[in-house]
């Protein structure tokens, strides 16, 4: 007896299998969605907080989503059930007493006894009378509600990142605007230093010009926070200032002014007139030789009158040198020694004269010519002054870049507020006194053209002075803090360092003899580097 066809059974089973696959796809999609959400959140968090970037771009998000969907599809295909499996499942769910399973199994053998045919017939009849595909529901899995968690997390992360980056962008623009002026000035200084270095053929100035240019670029590149930008500018300027000071140390210790004064003093006496003439001519080697010749005469003591003249000339020169206030350290020592020699024996006087001759010879044997050294030193001094002015917020360029009357282009000057009387108490409301506001002090200094060749006298009511900071010789503490933007670690480290060093700095400020006008700048400088609470 032939087994009857089981089309209706197969139709039901296939429909059930489709529903099973759909349900499996939904479930897998939800699971893959949760997984993709977790991946996106972790990826976004790493990008946002560890790498400081936007959490993700649309391509990445779309890629993860598509990948999850494709993976879910592949899983659904891989786990697609066979018809006997579906039959077993439908039989259990529908309490059909294994009619699907039996019909499917018996239909494989076409002729195997009358009872089998009867069994298949009965199964087909039973299946045809019912709707069994509905036994397998297709509905959204309960786990789908958990998808809200990654969705909300992703949305919050994206929102926070957008807000944060927009604020940072604004800060960066403001910070760049804040440092732009300083950077432009630094570039101007760099150009002028470059020009000067070409004229004087000085490598040091060339390096300095390059350093200035680099500092300007770094200042622009690192400008992300307006407050930090200001500090960063100050740091850059301080570093440049220190660099210039270090370079200054290698320059000759006697300035041209001192040299002129010495030549003038020596010229007043007949015996040392020859040395003075050579010194004025700029030939220090010949000047030293002439001086030694005069000393030789003094030692031979052949001519009492000449000896006395030379001694007197030297003493006069030393006295005049000692009266000069702009003496360098080396010249001060020499003057002091000669002053003592003037009061003692002639042997001591001649010893001091020997030292003077030796110093002149050393200067003559310098690596670069005296004229270029002098030019370099002047340029560096002017550069240093310009940097100090920039640091203190002074020397804003005039509109049009033209100097004010009474000022000389190509020089950087700071006007003394004491008007020649350091002990004078300023009257209340005096506009010439520091107002406490940045840039409001009456300062005639300018950085427009700090490398001018001529120096003119300052205004009638003011005394022009060049103030050059100098590294102290006492104990110092330097500490480098690794900083990465707003890293709290570096902030904390800086705060600790500041608290440790602030008392010492305050004590130094109180003890040192600081001009009244500069005290405010120093105070403001320490205020600016004070860490924020």
């Amino acid at each position, binding site marked *: *007896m032939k087994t009857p066809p089981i089309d209706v059974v197969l139709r039901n089973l296939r429909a059930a299998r489709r529903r099973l696959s759909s349900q499996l796809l939904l479930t897998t999609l939800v699971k893959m969605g949760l997984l993709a959400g977790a991946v996106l959140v972790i990826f976004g968090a790493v990008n946002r907080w560890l790498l400081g970037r936007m959490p993700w771009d649309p391509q990445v998000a779309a890629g993860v989503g598509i990948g999850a969907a494709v993976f879910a599809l592949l899983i659904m295909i891989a786990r697609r059930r066979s018809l006997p499996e579906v039959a077993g499942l439908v*039989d*259990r769910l529908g309490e059909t007493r*294994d009619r699907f399973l039996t019909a499917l199994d018996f239909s494989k053998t076409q002729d195997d006894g009358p*009872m*089998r045919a009867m069994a298949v017939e009965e199964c087909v009849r039973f299946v045809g009378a019912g709707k069994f595909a509905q036994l397998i529901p297709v509905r959204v899995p309960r786990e789908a509600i958990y998808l809200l968690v990654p969705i909300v997390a992703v949305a919050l992360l994206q929102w926070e990142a957008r807000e944060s980056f927009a604020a940072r962008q604004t800060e960066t623009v403001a910070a760049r605007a804040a440092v732009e002026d300083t950077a432009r000035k630094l570039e101007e200084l760099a150009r002028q230093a470059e020009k000067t270095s070409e004229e004087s053929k000085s490598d040091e100035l060339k390096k300095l010009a390059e350093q200035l240019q680099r500092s300007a670029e770094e200042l622009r590149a690192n400008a992300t926070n307006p407050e930090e930008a200001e500090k960063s500018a100050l740091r850059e300027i301080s570093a440049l200032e220190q660099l210039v000071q270090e370079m200054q140390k290698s320059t000759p210790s006697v300035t041209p002014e001192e040299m002129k004064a010495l030549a003038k003093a020596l010229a007043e006496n007949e015996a040392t007139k020859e040395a003075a003439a050579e010194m004025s001519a700029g030939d220090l080697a010949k000047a030293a030789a002439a001086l030694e010749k005069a000393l030789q005469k003094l030692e031979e003591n052949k001519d009492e009158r000449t000896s006395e003249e030379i001694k007197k000339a030297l003493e006069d020169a030393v006295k005049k040198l000692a009266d000069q206030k702009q003496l360098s350290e080396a010249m001060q020592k020499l003057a002091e020694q000669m002053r003592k020699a003037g009061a003692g024996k002639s042997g001591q006087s001649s010893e001091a004269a020997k030292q003077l001759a030796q110093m002149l010879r050393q200067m003559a044997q310098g690596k670069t010519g005296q004229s270029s050294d002098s030019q370099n030193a002047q340029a560096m001094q002017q550069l240093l002054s310009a940097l100090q002015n920039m640091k203190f917020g002074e020397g804003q360029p005039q509109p049009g870049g033209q100097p004010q009357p009474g000022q000389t282009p190509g020089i950087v000057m700071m006007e003394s507020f004491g008007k020649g009387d350091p002990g004078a108490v300023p009257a209340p409301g005096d506009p010439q006194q520091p107002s406490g506001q940045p840039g409001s002090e009456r300062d005639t200094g300018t950085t427009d053209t700090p490398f001018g060749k001529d120096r003119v006298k300052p205004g009638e009511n003011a005394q022009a002075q060049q103030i050059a900071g100098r590294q102290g010789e006492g104990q110092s503490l330097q500490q480098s803090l690794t900083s990465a933007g707003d890293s709290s670690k570096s902030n904390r480290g800086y705060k600790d360092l500041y608290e440790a060093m602030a008392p010492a700095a305050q004590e130094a400020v109180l003890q040192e003899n600081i001009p009244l006008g500069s005290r405010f700048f120093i105070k403001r400088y320490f205020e600016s580097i004070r860490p924020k609470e």
Partner: protein
Amino acid sequence: MTDSPNLEKQTEQFRASFTRVRDEMMKMMVGQKSVVEGVLVAFFAGGHVLLEGVPGLGKTMLVRTLAEAVNLKFSRVQFTPDLMPADIVGTNMIAEDENGKKSFQFQPGPVFANIVLADEINRATPKTQSALLEAMQEHHVTVGGTQHRLEQPFLVLATQNPLEMEGTYPLPEAQLDRFFFKLKVAFPTADDLHTILDRTTAREHPEIRKVLASPQEVVELREVVRQVPLAKDVQTHAINLVLATHPSEKQASPLAKKYVRYGASPRGAQALILAGKIHALLDNRYHVSRADIDQAAPAALRHRILLNFEGEAEGTNTDEVIAEILKQYAG
């Protein structure tokens, strides 16, 4: 091969006979429907039944009623410690013919009946108990070197008391395995007791009608049962159930692994399938389902599972093991 309409008629006849015999038996038995159905399933499957229950629950009555309903020869053996094998299977006796010539003549014992009630089988010695082994499995007995066939159908219904264990001899595993089903006769409920009292203390007694005409009819019905087909997956399910009772098999349930010393034999699987076929026919189906197998599992497997010492000490019974296995394979 029987053609389809005839087969359909036979299955109809089977269902009718089964139902009528059950109804007749239920006239005498109160509240023991599952036991009655179990006995009938074993009867139509050609197996023997071990009834376990305290005295007075109607075990003997059940067997007697069955014999009356199916119109078969019935005998009863009360097992006692001094009962000898010959008392069961029969013996050769000297007989004298008309000419005065003497010869040995076989005197059949009570086992020569269609339905044998072995009452309190665990009270006899193992030697006597084993006298039933050959009869139950081979359907013949050997006395004095001569084999004597038993009449068909042959059914042994043994009873045992689970409480009075003193002076008893528990049945050996080999003999237990020969029982198709082990049925537990539960104590009746209060309502059932009312009915029992009403029926047994009244003047009129219910009359049992004979449902079947001859023993041959029983044999034919048994043939119908064996024709019921089953799918391969259903057979696999039965095999899995049996294998799950073996602690060493991978299908073993946790309880079986812990408390079972030895699981069910292949006779257990045979019993499952045959009982499943009868359940399918009774359910108007021509195929066996897994539910049919599950329905027969406790009665077919409970006496074939041997608990280990730990299982005995813990008070676990085999029904718990079977329940866990059924739950495990319920999907």
